[in-house]
Each structure stands twice: as structure tokens, then as C-alpha cells.
């Protein structure tokens, strides 16, 4: 599902070169729940951005869902993300002026679905994450855990093959963090999604199928973990 071959990413900050990733080769199979772990500045988010089509490698090949991302233009990458990738962010990043259902509907605006169909699918996605009754609430009326569930509903509403989550439990209390981790695990286990999560949260280790450690942009050997 996700194939990175000898990927490097170099940023230029003034005269300095920052090597965020160096010669990363990574394979994540379909339906797996993978965690990218490592200290701050180790390149986890950079790697996540690259495999999600948000950023481009300086070197190396990125193939996701059978599509080589290196060759795609900005607009093609946007279309790729709309079709294949769902996103979950640390700070939920819901649009505050839209209610939960409208937030979940956002990715569906890029499809050819009619209004009624969009509404129905958004409602279904909210039910999947256990928020069917909270559809008309705005983000400010929802708790942190509920907001993250809405973000997950938004990530899965288009039925993408891949869900990427950047520190999804970073802004949650322990109870909500565990619930979100379980939900992400269910997406992989029950719905066949490939879920890639960047996390510092050690509780995540119990939920994932595999952990990839990064340090200073270099990927360590994969360490498969049993699911909880």
C-alpha cells in the first residue's frame, strides 16, 4: 500500500541545509495500523507528510495506493489526497463556523455526490465514530475527544484507503486518547484501512501493528507489535 524507497528530504533555511529524512525505505501493507515514533525533530511528521502527498521528497521514490507521487503536480496531488487519504490532526482542525456534519461533509464537496447523498454519508461517518446524535453541534460545543472523533469521521467519509494521523492523542486526556486509539485500530482491523500515525504517546504501542522508529531522520528497523 505504501512504498518509500531511499527517500530523503532536505530543507533549506537560509544558507543551512536541514536533513529531515535520510535514505528512508519503508513498506506498510494494506490494512495495517502503523506508528511512526521518535523524539521531536526526528522527521516523523515530514515522513507522514511525504507519504500522504502533502510534501515531496528531495530524493527517492514514493508509491502510495499504486500511484507514484513524485510525478504528480500540485493539483494532481490534491486530487490524490481527496481520493485516497484521510487526515487526522493533533488539534482536530475542524472549521469552527461549520457544525459537525458540515465539517464531515467537506471532503465530499470535492466529489460529484448530491446534497442529500453527502448529508447521508456524513451522518453515517458520524455514527461510525459514535457521534450520530451530535451532528448539529459546532466544534465549540464539543469536547476535545468528540472533536477528534468528528475529525476521524471527516477522514473516513470518502472511504479512503489510507488514514494518516499526526499526534491524534496529543491534545486529549487519557480516557479520550485510548478511545481514539481504539477507533483508529478499528478502522484498520474492521474497515481495512491502512492507518499511519505519528505519536509520542506510549499508549499507542499497544494498539498498532507495527512501529517505525525515527531518529535524526533515519529510520530504524521496523518493530512489529501485537495489537492489544
Amino acid at each position: 500500500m505504501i512504498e518509500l524507497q531511499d527517500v530523503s528530504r532536505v530543507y533549506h533555511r537560509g544558507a543551512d541545509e536541514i536533513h529531515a529524512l535520510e535514505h528512508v525505505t519503508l513498506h506498510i501493507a494494506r490494512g495495517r495500523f502503523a506508528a511512526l515514533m521518535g523524539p521531536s525533530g526526528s522527521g516523523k511528521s515530514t515522513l507522514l507528510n511525504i507519504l500522504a502527498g502533502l510534501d515531496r521528497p528531495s530524493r527517492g521514490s514514493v508509491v502510495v495506493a499504486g500511484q507514484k507521487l513524485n510525478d504528480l503536480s500540485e493539483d494532481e496531488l490534491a486530487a490524490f489526497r481527496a481520493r485516497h487519504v484521510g487526515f487526522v490532526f493533533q488539534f482536530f482542525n475542524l472549521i469552527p463556523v461549520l457544525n459537525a456534519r458540515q465539517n464531515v461533509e467537506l471532503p465530499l464537496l470535492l466529489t460529484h455526490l448530491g446534497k442529500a447523498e453527502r448529508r447521508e454519508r456524513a451522518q453515517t461517518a458520524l455514527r461510525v465514530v459514535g457521534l450520530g446524535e451530535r451532528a448539529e453541534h459546532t466544534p465549540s460545543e464539543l469536547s476535545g475527544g468528540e472533536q477528534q472523533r468528528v475529525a476521524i469521521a471527516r477522514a473516513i467519509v470518502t472511504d479512503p484507503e489510507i488514514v494518516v494521523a499526526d499526534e491524534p492523542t496529543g491534545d486529549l486526556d487519557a480516557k479520550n486518547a485510548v478511545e481514539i486509539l481504539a477507533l483508529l485500530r478499528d478502522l484498520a482491523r474492521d474497515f481495512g484501512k491502512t492507518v499511519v500515525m505519528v505519536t509520542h504517546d506510549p499508549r499507542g504501542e499497544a494498539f498498532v501493528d507495527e512501529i517505525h522508529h525515527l531518529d535524526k531522520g533515519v529510520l530504524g528497523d521496523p518493530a512489529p507489535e501485537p495489537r492489544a
Partner: protein
Amino acid sequence: MKFLPLIWRNLARNKLRTALTAGAIGLAVSLVCLLLTMPSGLDMLLNQVASNTRVVVHNEAGLVYPLPYSDLQKIRSLPGVVAAASWTWYGGVFEVEKGVTFPNFAVEPEPLGSVWADWKIDAKQLEDFRRYRDGAIVGRATLKRQGWKIGDLITLKGTLYPVDLSFRIVGEIPNERAPHFLFQREYLDQALKAAGRNLDTLGIVWVRVDDPARVAPLMAQIDQMFKNSEAETASETEKSYFASFFSMLSAFVTIILIVTGLVALCIVFIAANTASMSVRERLGEIAVLKALGFGRRLIFATLVAEAVILSGLGGAFGALASLGFTQLLHARASSWNSSLGPLGSFIVTETILVQGLFLALFVGMISGVVPAFGAARRSVAATLREVF
């Protein structure tokens, strides 16, 4: 259309700022619409006050230079001339110490009713004007201003001629804006003869033509007739004659239109600033939308649409407000009014409404393009890194 609710919600995000920006744009568009009525309003006013069959003939050197009085007869003899009358500026002053003056002219009484048939002077008053050598016909504006009435006796002190003349008011020009004070030329002539002078010149000649189609050739014929004479003439239509008095106003209108253009430019900057602030505040959200798959063109289009809708709504409000305002004035006074002046003639037409709306949409477009372009081009990963 499916993105309209998203655009609308974003506009409603900061209601006060949206309302203030729309209000500023609406005010500017309203101002522009009102100012755009001025050229056509002046034209309409001129059409109301000027006859299309009346021609004025004056010295080609300028209005202050006289013409020989004999020219009047020559002009009257031309085919197509229904009637012709001369005006000779007397320059009389009422209440010298206060400097009260008004346009006062010596005129032949006989053709008065024919040359200015549209003034609709009462027949009995016209008859009295012919009968009494010291009679005067006075415009209603001057009558009201001075508090005079028919039958009053007044004296004007001559400033151009060394004679003071006493008049009895025998009639009025029933028009609220008419300031004229007309009296018999014969009266002035006799007074001057008594003072040892002759009145053998005139100021201007007014000619009533029988057919509007004949006006242009007749003017050419008159000017040709006096070509190479001691006093060559310049003929023009009454509208053109009055328009020359409005020329200063036209220059004023031009200045106002330039200022209006600058105001519109300022509004572009205000709207652009609002759009920039709005985009800056939502960089994170825009990055999220891009991450979800919203392409650069879509982001650009929705942000520009937001600015255009805001500006369009403000502009529509402003244009309609200006329409309502001028309709209100027009309902109170369809042309000249003593309290409103010519304002009743200035009407916001459909064309002006459309121009106002297009201005608003243009302002929205221009103000939205730069911040939208910047937001659309911004890298998603870089924005997510910076904002979160």
C-alpha cells in the same frame, strides 16, 4: 454552488467586520452612483430649461461685446424665423448700498410672447407690458427673493448707463427658477436720449425658429450673413448657451469624479486589507482544506468569491440606497425646486445601477485576488508546520 454555504459561513464568521466592510463599499458605491447622475442630470435640466427651437445670437468675440441693433431686423427677415427679440444688459442695481442685483435686460415687448411662448406668461400681463412703457416683467425667483408683487414700483440704479429707471411690475415669469427682470427697450432708449446718448446696440438676439430641423442651418445662415462685418456673430442653441454657464460646474463634476475614483481606490485597499486579514486568520484552516484535497484553483476561487460576494452585497445595498434617495428627491421635485434646487433632476438610472454593481464586483475581485493567490500558492506542509 455547493461551496456557497462554506463561503457564506466564512463571511458570517466576523459579522461586525463583514458589515463594516460591506458598509464602506456600499457608501462608496452609493457616492459614485450619485455622482454619476450629475452629467445626465445636468443634461436633463438643460433640456427642461432650454427650448429646442430657440437660438441665441451674440458677438463672436464674446457675450460682453455688443452687436449693432440693425442686426435684429436682418435676422427677423430670414425665412424660418418666427420671432426674434434682443436683450440688452442694463446692469441696474436695486438698493445700491446692499448691492442687490439680478439679470435685468431691455427687450422689445411685442415678440416677447412669441419668442418665449414656453414661459406661459399671462396674456393680460403681456398686454400690460406692451401698454406701459415703464412696465417690467419679473421672474418669480426674483419676485420671491425681493418680496415684490405685481403693481409694486421699484427703481434701479444704472451702472452701465448713466440713467436710473423707475418701473412698475406688470407681470411675472411663472417659473420658480426665473430670475429675469425684463423691461421695454424703448424706455431705456428714451431715457438715454434725454441724457444725450443713443441706444444703437444690443447684447444678444433670441430667435424662435419654426422647425427644430431648421435650427442648425439657420444658425449657419445667420453667422454667414454677418461674416466679415464689424461685429461677426456666433449663434448657438439655447441649450448650448446655458451649458456654457454650467461649464464651471462641469469642471467641478470632473474633479468630484476624480475624487470619487480615488475614494473607490481607497475602498479597494480597505476591502483588500479585510480580505488579507480574513485569509491570514484562516491560514491553518485553508491548509487543512488543502490537505483534504481542495486544489489551489478551488481555494483561490472560494476566497475571491468571498471577497466578491461581500463587495457585491455592499455595492448592491449602496446602489439601491442611491436609487431610493434620488427617487425620493424626484418625488418631491421633478425638476427645479426652490428648496432642493436641481437635485430632483438627478436620477439613478438602470445603467448607473449596473455601473455601480460592476464597480463593487470589480472592487471585490481586485481586493480578493492578491490574498487568495498567496493563500492558494502556500505550501500545505509549510503552513501546517508553522500554524500547528
